[in-house]
């Protein structure tokens, strides 16, 4: 097992079938990807680019018939239980239970990850402290702001001491202050624990600021991969007119279209995004 590789995808392909007679939709089209242990890796692209499908394959939710996906050397198709023990996952939707307190939400995940009773309350308290929610821990989640719910979900993911933290659009729908609050906690926890962070986002500015390396995805394929600085340098080298490109420029350069053009996604993507945005207010 190679401990320096957190995630490895080889020729990963996934097609959503629509029935026997109709052709399927190829959401992920033969991607190769390596996420190094300890880095913050961003999967960037518009709705429908294939980011969430890739994340679902990595988190063992989608069995992949074609290609290979492994987390710290464990195959996501054949060794799911081992993979799941290494993962902390925050889905795109606001998934904390509003009918429980913050502490009870984290306790549930401590229980399902088999945290022993003797250390459960201390571990839950540490997870809540790590995301700066100690004072609000015993309030009902229904009274939390969108940013607080996101930080609570981070605590739920952290309570099992994951080696790979997977965040699917963690700041979608949040205001700039709440977005900064979420990233502050992600950065602090990552520095303190050394865990690998795999994040999907379509906010290029966030990726530029917080990710060590990024992969730009469009229509199921990776169009470019590298550090934000490397990608920008490549764009400048290939197009000298762009002296100081942003990641948006990089995306346009490699995909041939702007993020605005590309923001399509299917009905489910749009509904999920809107639902999350409306729940965070």
């Amino acid at each position: 097992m190679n401990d320096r590789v957190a995630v490895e995808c080889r020729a990963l392909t996934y097609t959503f079938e629509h029935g026997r007679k109709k052709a399927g939709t190829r959401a992920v089209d033969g991607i190769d990807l390596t996420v190094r242990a300890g880095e913050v890796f961003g999967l960037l692209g518009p709705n429908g680019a294939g980011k969430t499908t890739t994340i679902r394959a990595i988190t063992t939710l989608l069995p992949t018939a074609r290609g290979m996906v492994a987390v710290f050397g464990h195959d996501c198709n054949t060794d799911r239980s081992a993979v799941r023990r290494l993962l902390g996952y925050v889905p795109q939707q606001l998934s904390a239970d509003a009918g429980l307190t913050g502490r009870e939400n984290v306790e549930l995940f401590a229980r399902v990850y088999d945290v022993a009773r003797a250390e459960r309350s201390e571990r839950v308290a540490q997870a809540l402290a790590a995301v700066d929610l100690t004072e609000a821990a015993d309030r009902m989640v229904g009274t939390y702001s969108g940013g607080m719910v996101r930080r609570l979900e981070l605590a739920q993911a952290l309570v099992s001491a994951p080696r790979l933290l997977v965040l699917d659009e963690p700041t979608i729908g949040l205001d700039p202050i709440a977005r900064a609050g979420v990233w502050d906690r992600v950065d602090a926890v990552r520095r303190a624990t050394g865990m690998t962070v795999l994040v999907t986002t379509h906010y290029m500015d966030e990726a530029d600021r917080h990710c060590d390396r990024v992969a730009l995805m469009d229509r199921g394929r990776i169009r470019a991969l590298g550090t934000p600085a490397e990608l920008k340098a490549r764009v400048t080298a290939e197009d000298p007119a762009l002296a100081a490109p942003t990641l948006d420029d990089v995306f346009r350069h490699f995909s041939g279209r702007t993020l605005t053009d590309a923001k399509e996604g299917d009905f489910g993507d749009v509904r999920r995004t809107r639902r999350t945005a409306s729940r965070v207010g």
Partner: protein
Amino acid sequence: MSAVPAAPRAASAEAAAGPEFGLLLVPPRARTGWRVVPARVVAMCAVELQKLRHDRTELYTRAVQPALWLLIFGETFTRLKAIPTGGIPYLDFLAPGIIAQSAMFIAIFYGIMIIWERDAGVLTKLLVTPTPRAALVTGKAFAAGVKAVVQAAVVVVLAALLGVGMTANPLRLAGVAVAVILGSAFFSCLSMTIAGIVLTRDRLMGIGQAITMPLFFGSNALYPVDLMPGWLQAVSRANPLSYQVDALRGLLIGTPSHLALDFGVLALATVVGITAASGLLGRLAR
């Protein structure tokens, strides 16, 4: 399954300076084998009880319908003496049927809850934990059972207030709780199985409405099986609700019952339900 690698990482100096993250660096020791399912069941039931502790509104509002059945239907038919009940007052005959009905009504909508959890990302998050699907479904099923037991206790108190003569034997009452839990576990699994087939809340609500009343009227909850036409007797014999009512009636009122058969059928139905719902849970996650 290969062994889960230890987490070779060291907290930086920054960790010592910031909040104490010590335990968040050490993965918990995994339960294995038979211990996994009971642990997940306890986790799901604890959540259900915590929710009930925070908000009892559902408990009270759900008590209205059984109260109306006992007060209006029960009291009226007790006076009419239209249904032969083997010498016991009709209200006493009816009370166990209403307990079973109120428990079933709670459980049958668990499929809607799991679709809501799918839409809210909760199910996805739980499926990414080291919880086998069967353990997750069993946990949900028994959580429905715990909720139904609390609801059943409310109906028992209501029935006692209306003068229904019920046992106070703790062993028999424990048997009542087991029958309610098994019945609710089966009906919640039936609902989650249908959820795994139809996938949307709207379709499931329609099907839920369509099957609850036939299940209720096609059982011995309101009248003895002997009064039914032959075809309905066959339906009743295939309906787990009938076995649940038979067990509840025998345990609470002391009427002749077939406890071994009743509990056997309920346990088997629960196992079949858990198997079917677990098999279809993946469809919901996709």
